[in-house]
């Protein structure tokens, strides 16, 4: 399948990377499906708005239910933009070029929706502004809101900057664009003409962004972990929660990127650009971050398990051999240990197997957040006396489940729109790397 670099001409690259930018039947059906599903879920949310949070399974014991697990998951998945673009990019891994935009798209989609996910956990969402009006600078909640907003803006800029050159090329060279798209491209391409001065500005801005992105991304997930770790509750009271969350986030994000790569490659016919090499390498990245995550998992469970302080003992027992056992071991073995073992072998890092592994990892990653958030709250230090059973044992309701699914649909919509109307793979950069130095701009 792979071609030599000299077989890539400018016209071929442009056509390969932009031929999917058109409104076809498949797209309309897919978007229609997403929109209808979203409407159904929004209807569930409208019930919650009218009736109150009581329609969800959260009660006085478990006040942070699936919504919070979902929030942590979304923040986690958004972190991948930073790993791929900033960390690996700054090190200078050239093979990443075709993957960077996919990673950034995922980062933007998840970060943008994460803010909405947290609103789903609010009984009075119209009071969200109070966080800004009355927020305390001592509170991790304010930090969280701040860093997520910052990270979202940084990711948007990082998505946009490399697009400038691409849009300049497209609106000049690609004729069969939908007519309403052209003027948008023209405005967004900011009169770019591949002028060295312009390239210098863009490259400088990208470099600055990449450097800013690292602390911002580390902060968003570290602060999210602090929402838990600053309490003294069993299962949350941990000093390694920051890195534990960050490494877990890389696992979820890498899996999401691999899945997206697989579908873009197939649907947009990008086999020449997203090659087996990219899947193989991303498989290695996923295996590496999974190993790091495994290391933190061992820390998280072995150390409290050795000391067995009373509250920890109850908590760990529920996980290892109690109420949450099945979920816990399925997630740990099926979502972490087995994938690591598989990914050690080259044959499992081919596109289809690594995509399937990634799906398993991503699903497990969601349930892992569930395990982190919920069981702890079922064992309060000061139990309330004579409470109804549904206080003690959390079980999500149907409405709650639909409200939890809604953000996923929204993420798919955002990713679909961005990938549909812009090249999934950076056009200008790819051409450069294939040795096409300058474009002829009129």
């Amino acid at each position: 399948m792979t071609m030599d670099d000299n077989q890539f001409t400018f016209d071929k690259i442009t056509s390969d990377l932009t031929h999917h930018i058109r409104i076809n039947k498949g797209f309309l059906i897919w978007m229609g499906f997403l929109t209808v599903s979203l409407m159904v879920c929004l209807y569930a949310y409208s019930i919650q708005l009218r009736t109150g949070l009581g329609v969800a399974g959260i009660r006085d014991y478990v006040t942070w239910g699936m919504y919070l697990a979902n929030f942590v998951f979304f923040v986690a998945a958004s972190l991948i933009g930073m790993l791929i673009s900033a960390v690996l990019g700054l090190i200078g891994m050239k093979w990443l070029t075709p993957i960077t935009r996919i990673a950034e798209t995922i980062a933007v989609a998840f970060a943008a929706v994460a803010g909405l996910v947290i609103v789903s956990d609010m009984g009075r969402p119209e009071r969200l502004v109070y966080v800004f009006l009355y927020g305390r600078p001592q509170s991790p909640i304010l930090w969280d809101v701040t860093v997520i907003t910052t990270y979202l803006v940084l990711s948007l800029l990082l998505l946009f900057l490399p697009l400038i050159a691409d849009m300049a090329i497209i609106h000049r060279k690609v004729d069969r664009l939908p007519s309403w798209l052209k003027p948008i491209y023209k405005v967004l391409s900011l009169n770019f003409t591949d002028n060295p001065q312009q390239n210098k500005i863009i490259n400088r801005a990208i470099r600055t962004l990449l450097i800013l992105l690292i602390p911002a991304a580390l902060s968003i997930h570290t602060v999210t972990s602090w929402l838990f770790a600053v309490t003294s509750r069993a299962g949350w009271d941990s000093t390694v929660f920051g890195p534990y969350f960050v490494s877990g986030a890389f696992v979820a994000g890498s899996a999401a990127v691999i899945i997206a790569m697989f579908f873009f490659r197939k649907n947009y016919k990008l086999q020449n650009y997203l090659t087996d090499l990219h899947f193989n390498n991303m498989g290695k990245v996923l295996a590496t971050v999974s190993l790091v995550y495994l290391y933190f998992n061992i820390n998280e469970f072995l150390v409290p398990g050795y000391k067995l302080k009373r509250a920890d003992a109850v908590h760990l027992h529920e996980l290892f051999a109690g109420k949450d056992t099945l979920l816990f071991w399925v997630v740990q073995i099926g979502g972490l240990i087995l994938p690591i073992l598989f990914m050690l072998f080259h044959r499992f890092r081919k596109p289809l197997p690594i995509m399937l592994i990634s799906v398993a990892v991503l699903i497990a990653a969601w349930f892992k957040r569930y395990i982190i958030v919920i069981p702890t709250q079922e064992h309060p230090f000061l139990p309330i006396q004579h409470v109804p059973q549904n206080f003690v044992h959390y079980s999500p309701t149907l409405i709650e489940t639909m409200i939890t699914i809604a953000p996923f649909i929204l993420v798919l919509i955002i990713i679909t729109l961005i990938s549909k109307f812009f090249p999934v793979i950076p056009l200008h950069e790819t051409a450069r790397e294939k040795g096409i130095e300058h474009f002829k701009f009129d």
Partner: protein
Amino acid sequence: MRFINLFIILYVCSIGMTVSAQTWVVPDDQKTVVAPFLFTPEMQKQGEQIYLKNCQSCHGLMGKDNWAKLTPPPGDLSKELAQKQPDGELFYRITVGKAPMPEFRNILSEDERWWVIAYMRSYNPKYIQPNPATKASFAGRIVTLDMKYDDLGKKVVVTANEELKDGQSVHAAGVEVALFVKRFFGKLQVGELKTTNDKGLAIFEFPADLPGNKEGYVEVSAMVNDPKNIMKTTGAIATLAIGKPTDMPSLTEGRAWWATRGKAPVWIILTYTLSVIIVWGFIFYIVYSILKIRKVKKINL
């Protein structure tokens, strides 16, 4: 044999528990107890305040059926189940409580407990108050406490006086007295119960290190322990300078992690603001430089 013993113990316990879980027996002599005064609108108003502060969290608002979901259910006190009981029965229940209903013996004074009942009864149009118990018709002992502090011995001396039928006052022996100090969340008992001696005295050692306010004042009260409610008693209360002077600034007085926004530690405000300014400074700079891209072309044309 062992097994049978164990079985019997378990059996007895379980019966005991079932019975105690279901019944809340008021002794017969308590049912007939009546308030020592006629209820007035004033008292109902006082009672409402006490109710809102001490009872509403469980029993909900009167007549609204919105009590807390507890087992057994507290119920709405304006309704039949409570209102059909005589005053004495209500008074007894409020006095001794039964888990999860707290006992208010040491939390509310007798008068206060009657005021709450006065308030409860204001929701019952059919209620007619029985004649108040007058001192003269009261058959039991009438005991009044007096309290003073013995500086030399560092002791609180409580004197119990009894009013006899002929109006004479004598030292009351054999009266159980409990001593309390007022703390933030209620009254704290000091030492054990003491029984008055022949001279009507009960003497309490007062701990030297009990924190008082800035000047060392603590509110001390003495009460007769009369669980069966067979006496008519008046306690003694005094604010004495016998605590350890303690000047504890409130935990939220200065700047702290847990304080309000206005009292955030300076270094947190600085770190937070600086980080935001620096990062967003860069962001604005980047946006500004992006806008410059447009102009570059014009220059080069």
